[in-house]
């Protein structure tokens, strides 16, 4: 069954460092998402991406965050200068049409 692949599975970084989380969505999907889940809290929407541009973003997705689809297959989330509170599981998701998302297994980010 097609799946969304995320790398790395776990990244530890120092506060202030840049982090890039990578996702390979399902190949024929058109809409791409990043969500995050802080430990013990709910899954929160960050950003949606369609037709090579951001279609919607939440208040969490401030200027420190950016997304890119550099080569037609990868979908990346960059955090420019990480803060302690950015520590969370980051989930990539994709869909083809109807609002039914397929999630990746997540990337755990730990900011020290």
């Amino acid at each position, binding site marked *: 069954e097609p799946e969304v692949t995320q790398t790395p599975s776990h990244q530890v970084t120092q506060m202030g460092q840049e982090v890039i989380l990578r996702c390979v969505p399902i190949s024929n999907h058109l809409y791409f998402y990043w969500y995050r889940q802080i430990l013990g809290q*709910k899954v*929160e*929407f960050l950003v949606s991406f369609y037709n090579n541009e951001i279609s919607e973003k939440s208040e969490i997705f401030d200027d420190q965050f950016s997304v890119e689809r550099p080569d037609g297959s990868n979908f990346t989330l960059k955090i420019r200068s990480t803060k302690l509170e950015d520590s969370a599981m980051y*989930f990539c998701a994709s869909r083809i049409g109807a609002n*039914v998302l397929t999630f990746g297994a997540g990337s755990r980010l730990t900011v020290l």
Partner: protein
Amino acid sequence: TQLLEQSPQFLSIQEGENLTVYCNSSSVFSSLQWYRQEPGEGPVLLVTVVTGGEVKKLKRLTFQFGDARKDSSLHITAAQPGDTGLYLCAGAETGNTPLVFGKGTRLSVIA
């Protein structure tokens, strides 16, 4: 801001018991979905409901969407230890608005 409230937050039951978990909101959703999340993994879709009053069954799991499309329930019959996990509801206001998640119900089924 749409909010989805799930209850109970935690539930621990014996194998063979029945249970119901709830997902409530003051907002109307065009669709509502139930996911299950295992530790260290992403949410996995169980079902999508789109019509008010709709009932869907997935083996021992029965999902219902409220008539007003503001709430939903998940009923598990004869729970098994394999049902243990975090159950999340998520709703979308329209077909293209991002899914909003509830905090989830953490279910533990004891053998």
